[in-house]
């Protein structure tokens, strides 16, 4: 299974181009220093020492994803979410390649309070990337159907805050799956948003790399805990023609990865508190760890175009 090639390839997870089980864990927890590289829908991992010894060449895509800052949370699992968000900013500013922009995949605030959003805005001003693209989490939509979030972060978006944009030839789609949640249900995109999305990608060339970002995972991580989106298969159906699709999510407060054909799904760690792995606790609530371990279970995700290749490296690093 392990083959050392001249470019330091550790694992070819798709020897014949097809991942039969459709499931892959590049790393179970953040901070293990393994790079997952997606190249035309094929996932390969490289050892840390080989990868990114230099910087990405100028003109190549480089951005950071953070998630679940839960500003306002102050219980035992982390009494200082301000401090850990600042540590995340320090981590971002120390990256070898300065990221061009940032994605925040939601639960920016804990209780949708204006002062919570204000504090996050203040802290993120200290990060090198000045452009930040947001999608809301359920904790951001608690007042007035999310009016506070929408006025602040979603100008120029449609409906409950969905939108798309292009960076260096990659098409980014920000989706909202935390509105109009139904009793007993999972995340939901809704007909209006799905129709918009179908139209949005209709005329794109199939060689366009697609980057989708949304709060709740767009694959069925653990439905018992609400970790999934009911109508995501419809959204993914619109993306079947594309050779490379990456989906970046948050919500579950741990890193997880899955490959299904041409789609790589990836969830980010939180900058506030971890949550248990599926089914290992009575509920998906904040998981307490010894104080000195906290930063090792929080993290950021760095996405870079691999130097000289048409590939995107998704790298998680902890705050430790």
């Amino acid at each position: 299974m392990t083959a050392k090639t001249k470019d330091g390839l550790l694992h070819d997870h798709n020897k014949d181009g097809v991942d039969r089980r459709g499931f892959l864990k590049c790393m179970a927890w953040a901070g293990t220093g393994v790079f997952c590289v997606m190249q035309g829908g094929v996932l390969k991992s490289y050892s840390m020492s080989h990868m990114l010894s230099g910087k990405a060449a100028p003109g190549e895509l480089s951005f950071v994803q953070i998630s679940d800052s839960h500003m306002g949370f102050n219980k035992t699992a982390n009494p200082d979410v301000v401090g850990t968000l600042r540590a995340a900013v320090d981590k971002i500013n120390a990256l070898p390649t300065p990221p061009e922009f940032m994605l925040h995949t939601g639960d920016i605030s804990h209780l949708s309070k204006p002062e919570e959003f204000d504090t996050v805005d203040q802290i993120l001003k200290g990060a090198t990337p000045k452009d930040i693209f947001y999608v809301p989490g359920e904790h951001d939509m608690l007042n007035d159907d999310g009016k506070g979030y929408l006025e602040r972060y979603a100008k120029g978006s449609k409906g409950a805050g969905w939108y798309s944009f292009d960076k260096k030839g990659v098409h980014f789609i920000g989706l909202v799956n935390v509105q109009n949640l139904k009793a007993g249900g999972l995340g939901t995109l809704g007909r209006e948003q799905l129709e918009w999305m179908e139209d949005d990608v209709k005329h794109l060339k199939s060689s366009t790399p697609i980057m989708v970002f949304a709060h709740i995972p767009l694959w069925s991580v653990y439905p018992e805990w609400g970790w999934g989106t009911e109508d995501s298969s419809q959204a993914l159906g619109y993306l079947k023609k594309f050779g490379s699709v990456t989906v970046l999510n948050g919500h579950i407060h741990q890193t997880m990865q899955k490959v299904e054909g041409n789609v790589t799904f990836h969830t980010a760690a939180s900058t506030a508190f971890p949550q248990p792995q599926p089914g290992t606790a009575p509920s998906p609530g904040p998981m307490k760890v010894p104080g000195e371990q906290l930063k090792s279970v929080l993290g950021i995700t760095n996405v870079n175009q691999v130097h000289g290749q048409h590939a995107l490296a998704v790298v998680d690093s902890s705050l430790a």
Partner: protein
Amino acid sequence: MSRIVFTAVFLAAFGLGFAGSRSGGGNFAARAQEKPVLSEVKIDNFSFGPAEITVRAGTTVTWINRDDIPHTAVSTDKSFKSKVLDTDEKFSFTFSKPGAYEYFCSIHPKMTGKVVVQ
């Protein structure tokens, strides 16, 4: 002797009767002053406990959040909707009409509960 017995029986009867009437009168008075029945649902570990309760019409149900994450209680038929409850916050609703009220947490919709009002 018979006179003592008679007196004893008389007093006993009188006492019982008196007690009976007093307790009878007392019951009536107590029912009139009875406080409304309170019913509590604890929210913890992403669940409502008890998940299903049955109460009489006129009961006030109080939800109290003991979890370390905020939750809400929102009925599916829109008859009640709590504000966001952080840890130790409460929400109360008085059910005047009989029926079956299904509700859920609007933040974590997998959490569901039911109040049956008779």
